[in-house]
């Protein structure tokens, strides 16, 4: 034990007495560990902010969507694969869409599970004008359930009412920003006003019934001409757009206590009969939490894959350490001989040089961690994600860098240990 401590002091003194060489030797380890830590830090931050974002969107909701049919049930030949890839680029056709009838049937079958349905029919982006003033808007029709998952803070006026939804009235909700732009912020003037909307070759006049608070997107905050959302009842939108009640996806808000993972499986089964004969598309139902899990998993796989590639730098660094250790033992052959003459066992010499290699790698590792955490946090902040260095990754990296030291130090150390003391002492 005390030999170990002496060895550590010896190694540190040795490194300090030749700082340039020590630094250059460590550089490979520093870069290797640094890049691994930086990548993991950025990956972690990304994963964290992603899952936080998505959790806040309601993890227990079930998403039902149309997806190109995977060709697993085809014959599986190469032809099938080629055919399958062609299929993926297939456009959604009229008969592929999920219809209102299907959704109604679903609601009837699962009254105890379905709390609300969030359907959205995006009409498009356009510009609306009052007098000489104009503002850019995204127009969409939504179901009542939309507001269950996307809570709006109403500032003036009222929500779209049940009768608005049922009868498809020409009522709209607009953002406070639009009121600012078109009505000089006078909400009372805005409420009840009619505005013309021209979009997708359709035109109509709509009454503003409510003003909601527009959530500033942190990243888009600077661009002042961002379009705001204009919401109208789904039925109104369908009439406006002369569109059938067809959807490519929707969101089901489940009632409290419903196991949404089980329910999503049920929903998938429910839609199967409708698409049994559809060669191109099928319906997939999944919960947000399972989507988050999938995404997180994918992200961490990518992170680890990149980190492993960066780890190759560590390998190169380790080889550098081995090289310097070999030079070092050649230079210190007489010292090794002297130590043996004074009673050092082969194992004492081996331990001495392995400790030296480990210290080089450990110090390099510490610098690398500092560099990696700094770089990773800087990069995360730059990308606008909260930085989160992984403690586990730091500990593992330091441990790993020490094992790099042991691995690449072992061969030179053994070479030193096996030296014949007489030959070593005679070495010039």
């Amino acid at each position, binding site marked *: 034990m*005390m*030999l170990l401590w*002496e060895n550590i002091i*010896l190694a540190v*003194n*040795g490194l300090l*007495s030749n700082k340039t060489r020590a630094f250059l030797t460590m550089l490979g380890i520093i870069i290797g560990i640094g890049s691994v830590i930086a990548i993991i830090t950025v990956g972690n931050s990304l994963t964290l902010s992603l899952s936080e974002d998505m959790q806040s969107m309601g993890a227990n909701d079930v998403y039902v969507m149309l997806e190109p049919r995977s060709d697993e049930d085809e014959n599986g030949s190469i032809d099938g694969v080629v055919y399958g890839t062609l299929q993926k680029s297939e456009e959604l056709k009229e008969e592929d869409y999920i219809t209102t009838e299907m959704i109604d049937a679903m609601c009837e079958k699962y009254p105890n599970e379905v709390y609300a349905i969030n359907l959205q029919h995006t009409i498009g982006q356009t510009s609306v004008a009052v007098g000489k003033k104009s503002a850019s808007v995204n127009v969409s029709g939504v179901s009542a359930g939309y507001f269950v998952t996307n809570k709006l803070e109403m500032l003036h006026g009222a929500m779209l009412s049940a009768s608005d939804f049922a009868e498809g009235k020409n009522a709209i909700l607009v953002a406070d920003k639009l009121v600012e732009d078109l009505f000089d912020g006078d909400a009372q003037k805005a409420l009840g006003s009619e505005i013309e909307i021209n979009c997708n070759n359709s035109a109509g006049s709509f009454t503003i019934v409510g003003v909601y608070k527009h959530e500033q997107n942190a990243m888009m905050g600077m661009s002042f001409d961002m379009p705001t959302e204009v919401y109208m009842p789904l039925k109104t939108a369908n009439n406006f757009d002369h569109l059938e009640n067809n959807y490519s996806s929707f969101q089901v808000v489940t009632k409290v206590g419903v196991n949404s993972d089980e329910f999503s499986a049920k929903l998938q089964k429910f839609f199967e009969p409708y698409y049994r004969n559809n060669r191109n598309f099928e319906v997939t139902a999944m919960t947000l939490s399972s989507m988050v899990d999938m995404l997180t998993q994918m992200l961490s796989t990518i992170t680890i894959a990149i980190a492993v590639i960066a780890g190759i730098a560590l390998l190169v660094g380790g080889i550098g350490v081995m090289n310097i250790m070999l030079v070092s033992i050649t230079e210190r052959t*007489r*010292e090794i*001989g*002297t*130590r*043996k*003459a*004074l*009673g*050092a*066992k*082969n194992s*004492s010499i081996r331990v001495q040089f392995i400790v030296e290699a480990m210290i080089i790698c450990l110090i390099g590792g510490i610098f690398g961690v500092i560099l990696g955490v700094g770089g990773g946090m800087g990069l995360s902040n730059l990308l606008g994600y909260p930085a989160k260095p992984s403690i586990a990754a730091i500990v593992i990296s330091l441990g790993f860098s020490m094992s790099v030291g042991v691995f690449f130090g072992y061969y030179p150390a053994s070479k030193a240990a096996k030296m*014949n*003391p*007489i030959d070593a*002492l005679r070495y010039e």
Partner: protein
Amino acid sequence: MEFWTDQPRGTYILDGIDVGNADDAELSKIRNQKIGFVFQTYNLISKTNALKNVELPMLYAGVNQHTRKQRAKELLELVEMGDRAKHLPEELSGGQKQRVAIARAMANDPAIILADEPTGALDSKTGRLVMDLFHKLNREKKKTIVLITHSNELAAETDRIISIRDGNIVDSVKGGGKA
């Protein structure tokens, strides 16, 4: 004089141990405990001060830190290098280095001190000091000192002179002694 290699013929037994058949652990113990080495080129460990150099054989023997330090100090006092304990080898003169090396050879109180041309790299004045030190160790500490030299003058100071030519012992006589 090869204490650590296989002998081509015969056996060499030191203090009851068959050196020819000893393993690394036994051989390093012999080098550590029974023989103190003094080299022509001093062979102090660089970047390590005089005190630590003297402690080194005790470190390999597993002596605890306190005893190690205590004994190393005493030994440096013995070779009149007490005031240079914290100096690095590069800060010492040849004679001073050799005295530290002798203190180091004494560290584990070995029975034999093997000195290979210990004054070879020193001028005659400092060489004299080193030789006086050997005489002192021989007389006061009762150490057997095996001194290898080409100098007949130095050989004449010893109790016994064994002459070796081309690897063969050609003569063995009682020396003048300087006791």
